[in-house]
């Protein structure tokens, strides 16, 4: 077992206030299923799942209630037993409409349904294991929600030699991954073993920021149990956005993912610790992904803590479980404060990617008035992807998307460092989030036109 240090410093980065102490030392608590669950079908990247239950159906925990709609998609399972109240549509955080299943839970019904466990998984063919990961509905739990099965089946011309386990958790406030590493290190190592077997890799780096000494220690001890591969805990300096995929690859292996490329182009696969644990649970115990740990935090939450809750729990139920609020919230963010989404109400519910729920009081919420760029260049210094945020934002504002594309807007990881430092409070990231999908659609149309011509 080796302990290594990051190979270099992040190019651009910021040092926000972290406030992780609110929840870092509290053990994960388990929340019983609330009266109603609102389970979205768009919890992962790709096509929303297709509901296969109807109003009035009785479902049991772990039963598949929606199937994957295509290769880049994932099925959804009932997070608790009960009755389907309604199958309707609701807006996703990105504004599109997606189907949603509302379940009235039944505390009397303790039945659960699992897939057959595979204790002898080493003897199973690769395809069976991958099919199980898909069947369990696992999607990247770090935030992007990319279906894990797809990530673990790289094409044959992209050999993978390194697995990176992302335990950086660089977002302020969030400690869900930290607590998972402290409390479930053995399970995470089981997952690492399975993924190493699937990808046939020999090197594993578990990347953790140095502000989590207890996680570093726990993972170090647990990794002793892993043989046959060269594993190390890589201690990263505490900087944002240390947890970004491309940054982690460069920190741990020194490789640079080319512009427009993917981790597999440099022989790496990066998986979040939560995802790895979900893989272990799906294979060893046959558990589909129905629960996740969410950090419910903020200075105005009565008892901020990490809660293991059924997916589909509303934000209102989550905060009620944590004792409610001591003062009114001015802003509620799903995810971390840097990359998360502000929520219009507490009616929203958790998904497979809900890493946190942050409540901010009036004093911490500033309503900025955005001013013209003063040309200070601070965003350029802060950008970890070496972009020129100021210039890209003018091109987007002017509607010149071709120029924005030439300025590599598609390499932007939407980390928010540029907007964080901008003294003119320009909504830089919002411009990029607006333009990127349009540029991708245009590219696709151009490619399709070329294909038919």
């Amino acid at each position: 077992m080796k302990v290594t240090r990051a190979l270099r410093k992040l190019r651009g980065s910021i040092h926000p206030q972290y406030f992780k102490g609110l929840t870092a030392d509290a053990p994960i608590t388990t929340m019983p299923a609330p009266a109603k669950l609102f389970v979205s079908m768009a919890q992962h990247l790709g096509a929303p799942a297709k509901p296969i239950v109807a109003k009035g159906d009785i479902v049991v925990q772990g039963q598949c209630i929606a199937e994957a709609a295509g290769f880049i998609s994932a099925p959804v399972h009932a997070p608790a037993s009960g009755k389907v109240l309604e199958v309707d549509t609701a807006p996703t955080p990105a504004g599109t409409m997606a189907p949603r299943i509302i379940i009235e839970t039944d505390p009397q019904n303790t039945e659960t349904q699992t897939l057959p466990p595979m204790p002898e998984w080493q003897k199973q063919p690769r395809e069976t294991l991958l099919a199980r990961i898909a069947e369990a509905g696992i999607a990247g739990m770090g935030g992007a929600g990319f279906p894990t099965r797809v990530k673990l089946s790289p094409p044959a011309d992209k050999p993978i030699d390194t697995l990176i386990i992302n335990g950086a958790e660089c977002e302020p406030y969030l400690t869900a991954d930290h607590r998972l590493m402290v409390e479930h290190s053995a399970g995470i190592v089981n997952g690492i073993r399975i993924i190493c077997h699937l990808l046939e890799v020999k090197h594993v780096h578990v990347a953790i920021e140095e502000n989590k000494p207890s996680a570093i220690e726990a993972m170090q001890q647990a990794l002793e149990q892993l043989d046959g591969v060269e594993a190390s805990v890589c201690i990263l300096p505490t900087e944002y956005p240390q947890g970004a995929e491309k940054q982690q690859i460069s920190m741990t292996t020194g490789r640079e993912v080319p512009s427009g490329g993917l981790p597999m182009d440099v022989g790496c696969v990066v998986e979040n610790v939560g995802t790895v644990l979900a893989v272990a649970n799906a294979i060893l115990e046959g558990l589909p992904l129905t629960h996740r740990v969410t950090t419910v935090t903020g200075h105005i939450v009565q008892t901020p803590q990490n809660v293991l809750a059924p997916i589909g729990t509303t934000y209102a139920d989550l905060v009620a479980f944590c004792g409610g609020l001591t003062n009114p919230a001015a802003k509620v963010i799903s995810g971390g404060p840097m990359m998360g989404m502000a929520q219009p109400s507490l009616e929203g519910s958790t998904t497979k990617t809900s890493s946190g729920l942050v409540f901010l009081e009036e004093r911490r919420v500033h309503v900025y008035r955005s001013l013209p760029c003063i040309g200070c260049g601070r965003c350029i210094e802060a950008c970890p992807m070496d972009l020129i945020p100021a210039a890209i934002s003018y091109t987007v504002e002017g509607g010149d998307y071709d120029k924005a594309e030439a300025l590599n807007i598609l390499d932007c990881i939407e980390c928010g460092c540029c907007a964080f430092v901008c003294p003119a409070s320009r909504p830089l990231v919002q411009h990029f989030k607006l333009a990127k999908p349009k540029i991708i659609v245009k590219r696709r149309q151009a490619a399709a036109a070329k294909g038919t011509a």
Partner: protein
Amino acid sequence: MLTILLTAGVIGGIAVLCASALALAAHCFAVYEDPRVGELEKCLPGVNCGACGYAGCSDYAKAIVAEEAGIDRCAPGGNDVLEALAAATGAAATTLEKMVALVHCNGTAENAKHRHAYNGIMDCQAAHQLAGGDMTCNYGCLGYGSCARVCPVDAIEINKNLAIVHPDLCIGCKACVASCPRNLISMVPASKKIHVLCSSADKGPIAKKACNVACIGCRICAKLDGDAFTMDGFLAKRNYDNDVTNPAVIEKCPGKCIVDTAPAPPAQPTEGQHA
């Protein structure tokens, strides 16, 4: 004296040389343009709006001459242009129904409720990307004017957070239709004045909670005048093939979302606001 003559001679010589080079080039590299293109271009209105699907009026004229396109594609020109084009090309003239854009929403600041404060870019797509917009209604007009910005003739006005197309100004180019992230704009015959100004697919109680003038899916309009109104789930749709034969629907609609825009073109109903 000699200097002056010499200078004049040299400059004059250069002038003659260049002129003959230009004349030669004009002769050798002359581009033949079909005279019919110019003729047709004169018939077109010259707004270069792109409604015909070509880069501009001149491109469309070329396409007609090349027989790639019919003569009925110029929406802004209407019947006058169609007749002129028919006369110039000798093709048979049909009549065009004048189509104008309509925003199928009446969620003004007074009618529709707001769900949260939005402090971002003043662009409908940007606002829509954040949790589906700041309106309680997930379908209605956000009022950040993305459509108004693309209209080549400024026919769209944002009034009290609602986009309104002025039918007299609209040239029917359809540029606004694609610009709306909520898909609220479609083209309707200019002669039809009674519309369903709502796009909410939500059930009655939910739609009503979000907006005072929402369609609640009660089917009364479809019962009273089934030729002009049809139901699509919980939303009434206007069938523009038929005229409204029973104007009582306007009064009877409990959602107050059927509106006659005839009296004053950018009409806003006043009933809904006070009821």
